[in-house]
């Protein structure tokens, strides 16, 4: 770029919001739905896992469509959380509280995902119903998972709302108000699905 103006910050910020919704957000929904098959019993869950395992080029898909955007979103997100100011205790308007919560839940989700990957994906064991059942049988682990699911689904749902503004989709006041409520409905539904699956995993196969 010959111009003195640097647009890299703009591009990095917009890639951050895009990565959060398109690959990472879609994966979150897919992941929650796969987990929810546990409600139908161990066989249904193990079958769903096997179906995913049968996708061709799975490792490449996992790496380029989940790992890379997730890592970028997470690390750039920590930077965003750091350069943001926090005055929600002073100005406690609803949107400002959600602004602070978005960043707090982002950091919680960051820690949660690292621990979650370490105990499941990179634990050296195949993801089976029995393995997850073993993990969530520990009450501390179970509640940590609940906190992680609530934080992640809130961060995604509220992030959808600001995605609409960042990309100039929801311009008017009414559009922003309506999508604000819709995002909270999305949060309740997704968190409900996630917690229902966690409870299902506590039942012995």
């Amino acid at each position, binding site marked *: 770029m010959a111009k003195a103006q640097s647009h890299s910050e*703009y591009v990095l910020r917009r890639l951050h919001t895009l990565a959060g919704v398109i690959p990472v957000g879609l994966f979150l929904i897919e992941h929650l739905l796969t987990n929810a098959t546990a409600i139908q019993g161990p066989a249904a869950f193990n079958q769903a896992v096997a179906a995913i395992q049968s996708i061709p080029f799975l490792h490449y898909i996992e790496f380029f469509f989940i790992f890379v955007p997730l890592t970028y979103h997470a690390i750039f997100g920590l930077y965003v959380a750091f350069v*943001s100011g926090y005055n929600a205790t002073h100005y406690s308007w609803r949107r400002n509280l959600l602004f602070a919560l978005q960043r707090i839940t982002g950091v919680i989700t960051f820690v949660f995902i690292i621990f979650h990957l370490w105990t499941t994906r990179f634990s050296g064991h195949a993801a089976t119903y029995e393995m997850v059942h073993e993990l969530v049988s520990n009450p501390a682990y179970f509640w940590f998972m609940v906190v992680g699911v609530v934080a992640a689904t809130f961060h995604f749902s509220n992030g959808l709302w600001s995605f609409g503004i960042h990309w*100039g989709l929801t311009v008017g006041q009414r559009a922003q108000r309506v999508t604000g409520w819709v995002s909270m409905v999305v949060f309740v539904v997704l968190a409900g699905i996630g917690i229902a699956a966690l409870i299902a995993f506590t039942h012995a196969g």
Partner: protein
Amino acid sequence: MSVPTTEVSATEAPTRQVHLIIERQDDPNSPPYKEEFVIPYKTGMNVIACLMEIQRNPVSKSGRKVAPVTWEMNCLEEICGACTMVINDKPRQACTTLVDKLEQPIRIKPARTFPVVRDLVVDRSRMFEALKKVKAWIPIDGTYDLGPGPRMPEVDRQWAYELSRCFTCGACVEACPNVNDRNSFIGPFAISQARLFNAHPTGAMHREERLTALMGEGGIQECGNSQNCVQVCPKGIPLTTSIAAMNRQVTYHAIGAWLHR
């Protein structure tokens, strides 16, 4: 005076007073300190009137003679923005903030998002720099008469008028969490002003330059949608709508510019 019951009212109702706690600072680098003042109440007085009273009789609550509190003011009718300060935790203009509507003691602080010069005087030049950055004006100067410009549709003029009421007071900059020393965000008002001048038929001739500037350092991407700006704007300017509308323009501009290259 002529009413014979003055004796009774004089004993049961002493003169009403106004209690103020002002955060002061002697120079840009010295530490801030709080000083309390108690001044006589006058009907309908605003915060400026309180500060003028302190200037006339600069004696603190404890009876100590102090340097009078300094502040800035010009229009006294909420159109210049010079007297913006944080009164009872909210950024607003001292001229239109009435004592009757405030809880006492009245707590006054400078708008610390800007560098403090002295007491309540702040240096708001970063706002002027931001306006220059987004070219918040309509260039009409030339070496010859350019003639009348294109007309603006009435439907656009109506909402553009709302945006034109911005008087660069700095309330939105003070309340925005993303205007801080770790972030170079230009502030909500500048984005709204870029929208105003992009909407103007003659101003639109420099539309791309404003959008390029909004994508630059400290530009629109630094907004985190806390939406405090729209809550504190004394003119009720739809700043969050302006930001979203400019996000749309910048999105099209950014993708379009990239595809054209």
